């Protein structure tokens, strides 16, 4: 406990000693975390939007006229057994005719031309809402469509596919930019810790020679990197929230187009914690690399 307090005190002293350098470093870390934060936020919202739309995903399988009831019953059971399915309904040929007559009474006279219902029997399937299921749903529908009693299928997932593509692009661009900017962050903290090591090199040398353990020497620098990364993440979270709140005020008509897709009311906790965790991890990693490189622990 005493050691942790000592390390924390030393780390804070280091941070306060080089206020300008550390403030600059903090700003750069916050910016480098803000950019992936924005992409993450867009991706999060698109996924949420796809999920919302997915709640209404329905497929209608039209059954061949010659299919017997046992085959249809078997198919119904097969569909019901799927984990993707929320609800299954069966509409017979006669029910379909009745439904048509109920919905379009003015066209009832057409039906009189037929001896039996001209409509095929159908199986209506509602799927569970989850954007990740879209590909599975498509595959499932394709399998059922190719089974014996199914004549054709009605399903439209084009909209979901397009949004999923945008989301994929946002995720990819976010990941790519994040990777570059995180390397920049690591490099910056690495150099800030290097400057502090250089500034305290005499003290480090003395500590080493009077019997301080390696951890006793290194821990304050690790804590310093950790604090810088954590504060950078916190600042990035604040800036992201500010961006979200300010965007509708300044975006004008663009806002009206994309407000369906993106919810500008809140910053998801998941993204906020991700920023904090990433910042802290970057801080720790870069100070660790810097210490490994610049603090001499082995004799010459």
């Amino acid at each position, binding site marked *: 406990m*005493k*050691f942790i307090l*000592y390390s924390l005190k030393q780390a804070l002293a280091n941070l306060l000693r080089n206020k300008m350098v550390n403030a600059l470093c903090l700003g750069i870390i916050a910016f480098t975390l803000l950019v992936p934060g924005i992409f993450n936020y867009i991706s999060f919202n698109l996924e949420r939007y796809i999920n919302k739309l997915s709640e209404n995903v329905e497929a209608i399988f039209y059954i061949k006229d010659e299919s017997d009831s046992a085959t249809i019953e078997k198919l119904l059971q097969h569909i019901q057994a799927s984990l993707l399915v929320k609800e299954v309904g069966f509409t017979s040929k006669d029910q379909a005719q009745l439904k048509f007559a109920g919905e379009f009474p003015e066209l009832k006279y057409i039906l009189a031309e037929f001896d039996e219902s001209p409509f095929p029997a159908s199986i209506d399937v509602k799927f569970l809402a989850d954007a990740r299921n879209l590909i599975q749903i498509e595959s499932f529908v394709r399998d059922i469509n190719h089974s014996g009693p199914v004549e054709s299928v009605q399903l439209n997932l084009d909209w979901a596919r397009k949004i999923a593509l945008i989301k994929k692009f946002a995720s990819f661009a976010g990941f790519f930019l994040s990777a570059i900017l995180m390397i920049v962050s690591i490099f910056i903290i690495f150099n800030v810790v290097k400057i502090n090591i250089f500034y305290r090199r*005499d*003290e480090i*040398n*003395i*500590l*080493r*020679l*009077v*019997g*301080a*353990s*390696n951890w*006793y020497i290194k821990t304050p620098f690790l804590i310093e990197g950790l604090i810088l990364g954590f504060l950078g993440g916190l600042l990035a979270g604040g800036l992201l929230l500010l961006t979200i709140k300010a965007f509708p005020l300044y975006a004008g008509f663009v806002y009206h187009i994309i407000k369906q897709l993106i919810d500008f009311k809140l910053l998801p906790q998941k993204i906020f914690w991700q920023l904090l965790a990433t910042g802290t991890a970057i801080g720790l990693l870069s100070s660790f690399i810097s210490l490994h490189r610049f603090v001499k*622990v*082995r*004799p*010459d």
Partner: protein
Amino acid sequence: MIQFFHVSKQYFGIEALSDLNLAIDRGEFIFLTGASGAGKSTLLKLIYKDEEPSKGQILIDSVNSTLIPANKLYKLRRQIGIVFQDFKLLMNRTVHENVAIPLLVRGEKKADIEKKVNSALALVGLTYRKRYLTAHISGGEQQRVAIARAIIGNPKILIADEPTGNLDTNLSIEIIKIFERINASGITTIIATHDLNLINLFPRRIIKLDKGQLVQDRRIEAGQ
């Protein structure tokens, strides 16, 4: 206490120490002498393992120091008090803070540190400067702060590299007397110096190096 077996040390192909064999007993007081570049500082650095020998083995208190891993090195250093030629003090800290460093790194209690710092400063006659900034005291006083810091951890070995190099004769004598008092408590004391007048004033075992080789190892008695 300290044994060197065929120890050599090279820097970029230049031999600083050559096939050195040496044994120093517990509680001895030794003057390590020789001209500049003779290998005195290298020998001392090998003892506190700031340098590794290029060849040979070094035993410190029966432990082969060449086999101590980097992460356990602090255990060896806690047995050795070192007074550096350039003092290596933190000038922006007080005398008390400088002397307390070896105990702080060991995690000792504040009350114990206070007591031990007072004793160490009393031994070197510097109690009255306890709260002074180290930058604000004289060179002779800084030397004594360095000695107090070296002995506060109750080391088995005390090493001093040219401790009187920057001091006048009277101050030098005073400093060596302090080392004598420390040695009297059983601490093996090794002082590197090229000041022959000083050696003559305090007749002890003398180890002389020349171009990295041991050229003399003898005890001189008073009046010799």
